[in-house]
Structures are given as structure tokens and as C-alpha cells.
């Protein structure tokens, strides 16, 4: 029997696509996974960074205008005091959640397919949280006093009000950013050592060497590393759920129709995972092609992510349905009007766009052929994030623009500064991500080596591993 027919005969019918194509040895894996970092800079990368830098400039200009002119540079006013700023904040922080979900929750569930994509998603989390963190600060009005949010013995002789959801936000977001960074950096250390040991130039060896902090792959290092990594994942799992729960408290704890609802925490967390997985797909589909990573990020990964998007999309849809049910069943006039206003009010087109993107688009992923079609996946993932931004805008600005007293009703229109802050943050995120792709290993090298050993072991346990003998000592080989 040839290898191919034997593999076909023994293939698990439930696992038609592998999580790792082939069984490359450690040296081949190291070579292919460090190649994007160790190769000379490519022209395409430079062009892409240059184009995005224009957007970064626009973002800087918008930020500077906000600082100099003040919040009046935005379209915000009473009653719509929160608009693009908080919408974009919630959108970015939600996107960040996929990274922690993939790296922590899927680790605890021992999902092998997380291995190749966890570093990528964690980096996305970090940059998304960095973007998110800007908005609540500039939204303060006097952002240069942002440290007044921290409880320190200041000359003002007053403490933050811990009975308000907004100081909870400060603690949740800063804890989330810190823990995400530590978790990501911890995972990077063994790979930075690999780069130190394989880099062709002295400069790279020295720089990667400094950031590897002297990692020697010692049994003592690994012993503490493994338990530490698992514990970090254990902390990350409740943390990620708590963060978007606390973000949803900013709204749920208030009295405003459209905000004052107990379904917000679970519905925000589901929406966060929904948009985060979509963003991972949006970034990963081009990146795996450009960096030649199809061998380690296979269709199996994309297929699984599409399934998560479908599942969380259904949860989000359930959230929409339940909000409407409660608005009707609760018998509160303000609440009923807020939801009727979504369908018939001046911002109704955004509501229909939200429904199309978040409820209809994920339904494509019921079909296996569409889950494995790169064009469909890419377009759908972009649409999901458009839909999720629309959802946050509907919740925040549209709930506000019809206040309790009709005489205070007003429309919100974004200014160029609002648009600059939105699109500029996307470009800044893109530049940060491109820097990550260029200078750090996108795929966790040590973890993929471990994955290959596990897969070999599974093959061996099933009695048909082509590489099963590699696990045995030479004298034990048949």
C-alpha cells in the first residue's frame, strides 16, 4: 500500500482536514516558521506600511484636534453624549476577546487547533485593546488628567466612586491589557530564544537574545513554564468574560431604555467573541497566504473559526430577539418605544445593516463548502465586523438620541474628527499588526513542535503513524 492510500484508508472520517499538513521535523518547522522574521524586508510589506501610515497621520491629526479644540470637535452633544468614541471603544475591546478565548479557553479545553493561531490572535488582542484604551481617555474631556481615575492620595482629597461602573471599567481594561501582554510575552520567550539561536546577523542575535532573557530550554524552565502558562490561561478565562461583562455594565446599570437590560453581560460577551473571531479571519486569510503559512494554518482552522462565528452569531441573534421580547413583555412605554424606534426611526438603515450583517451573514456558515471558501470567509468576516460596529452604534447613540422628553430629542452627525478617529485607529492597528508580522514569530514555534509530537503520538496510539517510530529510542525501533 502506498503512503497516500494507507493514509486515506485510515483517515478519521470526522477529521477530513488536518490541523498540520505533513509531519515536518523540528529543524524544518523552525526554518519555515522563522523565515518571515529572518528574511530581508519585502517590498510589499513596506508599501503596505507606508499606505497605512497615511491613516496613522490622519488619526494623529484627529487626536491633536480633539486635544486642542476639545470634545466640541466631535458631533457629540446632549442628548447624544456618547457616540463614535464609546462605540469604537466597545468595538475594539470586543475584537480583543477572540485572542484570549483562543489562547486561554481553548487551551483549557485541550483543542489542538488553537496551537497554530494563538500567538496571532493574542497579538491582535493586544493591539485591539491598545486602540480601545485611547477612546475612554480622550473622551474624558481633559485627557491630560486621566490618572485621576486611579485611586491615589491626591491633593484633591477625593477617591474614585467605586459604586459607578466607569471606575470598574478602568480596572477591568487595565487588568485585561496587562494580563494579555504578560501571557503573550510568556509564550514568546522560548521562540525568542529560537530566533536568538538561528538569526543570521549579529544585531538580530543580540536583540532577540536580550528579549529571550537567557532562556536555555532547561527542564527546570519548562517545568515552571508549563504550569505557569496553564495558570495564566486559567486566570484569562474568567477575566475575558468579566471584562466585557463590566463594559456592558456601563450601559446595563443605567436607567436609559435600550441600555437598562439584564441580558447585556452574556450578550456582550457573545458579541465580543463573534466580532473577535471575524477579525482574526480578516487578518489571517491574507497573512497565511503572504507568509506561506498554509501548512500550519490549514482550512481546518478557518473552518473551525467559521463554526464559532456561526454559534456566537446565533447567540447574538437570540440577544436581539430577547431584547425585543422584553421590551414588549415588560410593558414599559419608554422601552417599547426605544425598540420600535430602531425599526422605524431616523437611524433605521443602520439597524437593517446590523441585522443583515450579524443575523443573516453568519447563516452562510451552515454550509461546509462556504466555510472553506476563502473569498466567502473573508467577505463575511469583514461584514460581521461592520455589523458589530453598527450594533454598538445602535445601542449607544441611537438609544440616546430619543431622550425621555421629546423636546430634548436631537440627531447625531459625526464630524471629520469622528471619522478620522475611527478609520485612523484601524490604520494604526494595521501598522502595529504588520510590525508584529515582520519582527516576531507569528506561529508559536515551540508549541507547534509539541503539537507535532502529540499528533505523532495519536497516530502511534492508533497503530498507524508514519512517524511513530521517531518517538522510540534507536534500540527500541523494530
Amino acid at each position, binding site marked *: 500500500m502506498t503512503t497516500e492510500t494507507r493514509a486515506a484508508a485510515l483517515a478519521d472520517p470526522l477529521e477530513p482536514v488536518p490541523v498540520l499538513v505533513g509531519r515536518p521535523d523540528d529543524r524544518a518547522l523552525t526554518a519555515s516558521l522563522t523565515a518571515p522574521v529572518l528574511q530581508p524586508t519585502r517590498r510589499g510589506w513596506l508599501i503596505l506600511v507606508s499606505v497605512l501610515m497615511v491613516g496613522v497621520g490622519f488619526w494623529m491629526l484627529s487626536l491633536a484636534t480633539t486635544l486642542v479644540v476639545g470634545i466640541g470637535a466631535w458631533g457629540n452633544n446632549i442628548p447624544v453624549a456618547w457616540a463614535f468614541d464609546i462605540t469604537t471603544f466597545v468595538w475594539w475591546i470586543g475584537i480583543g476577546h477572540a485572542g484570549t478565548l483562543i489562547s486561554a479557553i481553548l487551551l483549557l479545553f485541550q483543542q489542538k487547533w488553537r496551537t497554530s493561531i494563538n500567538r496571532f490572535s493574542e497579538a491582535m488582542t493586544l493591539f485591539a485593546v491598545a486602540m480601545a484604551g485611547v477612546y475612554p481617555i480622550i473622551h474624558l474631556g481633559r485627557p491630560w488628567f486621566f490618572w485621576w481615575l486611579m485611586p491615589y492620595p491626591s491633593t484633591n482629597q477625593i477617591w474614585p466612586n467605586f459604586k459607578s461602573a466607569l471606575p470598574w471599567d478602568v480596572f477591568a481594561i487595565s*487588568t485585561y491589557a496587562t494580563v494579555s501582554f504578560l501571557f503573550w510575552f510568556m509564550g514568546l520567550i522560548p521562540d525568542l530564544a529560537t530566533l536568538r539561536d538561528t538569526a543570521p546577523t549579529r544585531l538580530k542575535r543580540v536583540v532577540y537574545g536580550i528579549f529571550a*532573557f537567557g532562556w536555555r530550554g532547561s527542564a527546570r524552565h519548562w517545568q515552571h513554564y508549563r504550569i505557569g502558562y496553564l495558570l495564566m490561561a486559567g486566570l484569562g478565562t474568567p477575566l475575558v468574560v468579566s471584562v466585557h461583562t463590566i463594559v456592558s455594565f456601563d450601559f446595563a446599570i443605567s436607567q436609559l431604555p435600550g441600555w437598562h437590560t439584564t441580558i447585556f453581560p452574556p450578550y456582550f460577551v457573545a458579541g465580543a467573541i463573534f466580532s473577535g473571531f471575524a477579525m482574526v479571519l480578516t487578518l489571517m486569510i491574507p497573512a497565511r497566504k503572504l507568509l506561506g503559512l498554509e501548512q500550519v494554518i490549514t482550512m481546518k482552522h478557518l473552518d473551525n473559526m467559521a463554526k464559532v462565528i456561526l454559534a456566537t452569531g446565533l447567540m447574538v441573534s437570540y440577544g436581539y430577539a430577547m431584547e425585543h421580547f422584553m421590551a414588549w413583555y415588560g410593558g414599559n412605554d419608554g422601552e417599547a418605544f426605544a425598540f420600535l424606534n430602531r425599526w422605524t426611526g431616523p437611524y433605521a438603515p443602520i439597524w437593517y445593516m446590523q441585522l443583515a450583517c450579524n443575523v443573516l451573514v453568519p447563516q452562510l456558515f451552515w454550509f461546509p463548502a462556504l466555510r472553506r471558501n476563502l473569498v466567502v470567509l473573508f467577505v463575511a468576516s469583514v461584514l460581521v465586523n461592520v455589523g458589530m460596529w453598527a450594533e454598538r452604534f445602535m445601542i449607544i447613540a441611537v438609544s440616546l438620541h430619543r431622550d425621555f422628553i421629546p423636546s430634548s430629542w436631537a440627531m447625531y452627525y459625526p464630524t471629520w474628527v469622528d471619522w478620522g478617529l475611527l478609520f485612523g485607529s484601524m490604520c494604526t492597528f494595521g501598522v502595529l499588526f504588520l510590525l508584529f508580522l515582520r519582527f516576531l514569530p507569528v506561529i508559536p*514555534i515551540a508549541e507547534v513542535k509539541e503539537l507535532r509530537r502529540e499528533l505523532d503520538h495519536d497516530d502511534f496510539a492508533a497503530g498507524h503513524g508514519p512517524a511513530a517510530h521517531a518517538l*522510540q*529510542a*534507536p534500540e527500541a525501533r523494530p
Partner: protein
Amino acid sequence: MSARAYVVAEFAAEAPLLAAARALRDQGHADLDLHSPVPLHGAEEALGLKRSVVPLIALVLGVAGAITGYLMQWWMVGVDFPINVGGRPPHSAPAFIPVTFELGVLFSALGIFFGLFKLWGMPRLHHPVFEVEAFRSASVDGLWLSAAVLPDRVPAVTAALTALGARQVEIVEDA
């Protein structure tokens, strides 16, 4: 102890590497280490390592963080500067839960991260084993054993490692 030499040996497979570690330990060499690109199953038993204290650090600091968070809020808005918000009592336990939880997680994560660096003995940019040029493979695909021994034991350990099936043995004298 300063005048110790390092004997560094590369092995072709995991099983003889672990067997060599056990054999050297039986011969009375305590200061051994294994170096590999991935964690090795059975390395801790072969070297006789104790259980990691990282879980204890995580637990103690997590609890300490949560207690700190709660007491901080209780003292700041319940005692030192009571603020009446919506008629809620100054010491309002349900409102203190989010920050208590977040600080518990934050302290625990910082404790794990910096505790690991302490346990790893890092940052330590230079180590005698790095003197061996071929040791670079330890982070790629190489399986290495290092033994810190007194200079007079070097020939014996070198011979033992060769006999145990090492592919190459290197000696770092000036450690």
C-alpha cells in the same frame, strides 16, 4: 563552588537522554539539567525535580489581590470619603465585586510572571552552556544534557556520557 566545569552532551533521542540523566544521578551527580526545544515528558522524574511552587504563588497573590481590592474600596468610599450614590450604603458590597475580582486576577498574573522569572533565574543573558557553539540547537531540535561538576570529575563524567550514547560531548572549563 566557583571553580566548576560544565560537561554538555547532545543526545539523538529523548529516551537515551532521560536514561543518561537517571544514570548520572545514580552515580551521585546532582547538578544536572536537560535542554530541549519542547518540554520533555519524564524530565522532571529523571532529574528528581520537586513540584513547582508557581500554583502556590498564584493562589497567595490572587487572594492577597482580592483582599487588597475589597479593603481599598471599603476604606476609600465607605470610611474615608463616603459618597451617597442613589441612596446606596457607603459600604456597598455588591458594587465592590468587579474591582475585587480584577485586582485578584491582576496580582495573581503579575505574581506568576515575575515568580517565573525568579524561578528561572532570569534575566541571565549569559550562561556557561552558551559557550558551546553547537548548543544553539537546543532551541531548534537538539536534546542536550548539562552537568555542573568539579574539575577533577570532568574526565569521569565525559566518559560516562559517551558510554551512555551521547552524540557529542563538550566541556566548558571556565565556569
